[in-house]
């Protein structure tokens, strides 16, 4: 299974990453090697086998619907790169 340059650029776009031109081929080769290795799973017959997403037989438990104190706004905003009027701030320019 060979991953193409287009595949790499496509997944980079989906993952919101810019790639430098000189890195694209290196990533293409790395990803091809890994996907090639992962392809070994084709040897396994999985017909009728249900997928496992979580190991333990946990069920969703809802907490009581009681009001509780949340974190202070100041604390939540302390890591904001930019903030304004008690909100996270990002520039409002949209892509043309």
């Amino acid at each position, binding site marked *: 299974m060979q*991953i193409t340059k287009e*595949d*790499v650029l*496509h*997944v*980079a776009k*989906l*993952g*919101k*990453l*810019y*790639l430098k031109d000189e*890195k694209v081929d290196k*990533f293409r080769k*790395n*990803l091809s*090697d*890994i*996907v090639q*290795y*992962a*392809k*070994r*799973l084709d*040897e*396994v017959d*999985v017909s009728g*086998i*249900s*997928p*496992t*997403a*979580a*190991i*333990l037989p*946990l069920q*969703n438990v809802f*907490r009581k619907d009681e009001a509780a104190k949340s*974190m202070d706004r100041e*604390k*939540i905003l*302390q*890591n*904001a*790169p*930019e903030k304004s009027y008690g909100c*996270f701030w*990002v*520039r409002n*320019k*949209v*892509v043309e």
Partner: protein
Amino acid sequence: MDIKNKTVHELKNMLDKKETTSVEITKDYLNRIGEVEEKVQAFITVTEDVALKQAEISDNKRKNGEKLGALEGIPMAIKDNMCTDGILTTCGSKILNNFIPPYNATVVDKLNNAGCVLLGKTNMDEFAMGSSTETSYYKKTKNPWDLNRVPGGSSGGSAAAVAANEAPFALGSDTGGSIRQPAHYCGLVGMKPTYGSVSRYGLVAFASSLDQIGTFTKDVHDMALIMNNIVGHDPKDSTSYPQEHPDFTNALNQDIKGMKIALPKEFFGHGINEEVRIAIMNVSKKYESMGATIEEVSMPMSDYALSVYYIIACAEASSNLARYDGVRFGYRAKDVESLDDLYKKTRSEGFGDEVKRRIMLGTYVLSSGYYDAYYKKAQQVRTLINDEFDKIFDKYDMILTPTGPTVAFEFGKNSDNPLEMYMNDICTVPINIAGVPAMSMNCGFDSQGMPIGMQLVGKHFDEFGIIKLAHAMERELGLDNGAGL
């Protein structure tokens, strides 16, 4: 006092007998960090002021006869992917180079409540993605046994800190071997508990269905002590399991006669180094002479574990790491043209190559047209791997394997070839896939004096059984585990 090679239980005894104080011990460790840290590079942040303040509070509690925690006054180091209120938490990444968490991870709260003193936050592979700690944005941690070699990863800083006597114990996290493999490389006891037994609240997520917090200690007794203080259900972690845990120290000094141990032959193939294989066979013979039964078994599905692991771990990571967008916290790129440009520039500048590689791989296996062929298939094989573990544990109490195929390797040896690097995890990843508990413990040395780890794997929530067998072997071997630095 000479803190070199002191264990937590020895320090605890000395504190209880009032032979020393927490401030004195803490200063000794801080001095030791001052002495060797330039060589070892185990810490991203040393929290000297916090440590001395916590130690003083602890000593005052003792002096005033107040109620003491189970680990009162004992210093510790924490991997830098666990949130510490008011203390920089970078996850080894540039993208979190300014992140000061507004809260503590549950494990940090628990250990604080037990009376522990925080010495600092340890180096790690970026977002815990690596097996050598070389992908850290900040520094390269050295193996205290041989400074030309890697400490293992991703919790390499925690392992090196304990091996170099910069901390008596440390916490790490293990997604595919990130505690056990560095414990193996650094001659320590490294425990990855059952998935769901230790809260992940406040642990920076890598692969949520595989991640688990665990311990680095100098011996099995210490591991039992720390485990007693970190396990338990946490309403803040929806995957935390409501399970009663025994006092793990009751597993010490027990007879292991009649215990049944399985030796899966697949874990002894895959380019397992001959010296490593011989060390594990030696352990197996000793168990037999101590009255346990040993049988070779076959776990053919475990051969597919690494493929399953990289598909599932990367898929989960690509989703978990979508939150780093430069908006609410962490690094934000400058001079951007648009919101989309802000996301892309922030992520491109903030993440290193290994993280980008795994985000892209995860995105690929989840993308339209490939989901069934990769992600769903991996989840189905995961079911088969779990079934195989269940079947083994129907007949046996424990599984014994090497922790990794080789001893610690030299810097740069695998860093150009990701797939080669991933092969170091071949013995550890099946355990995370099945969510069972496992630990690595030093069981000997190779011809160059590098430590070799053995891995014990138990059934879900049988950390007690692991400790029982591990402690019996530790007593039998009586090894000197000092790194000599």
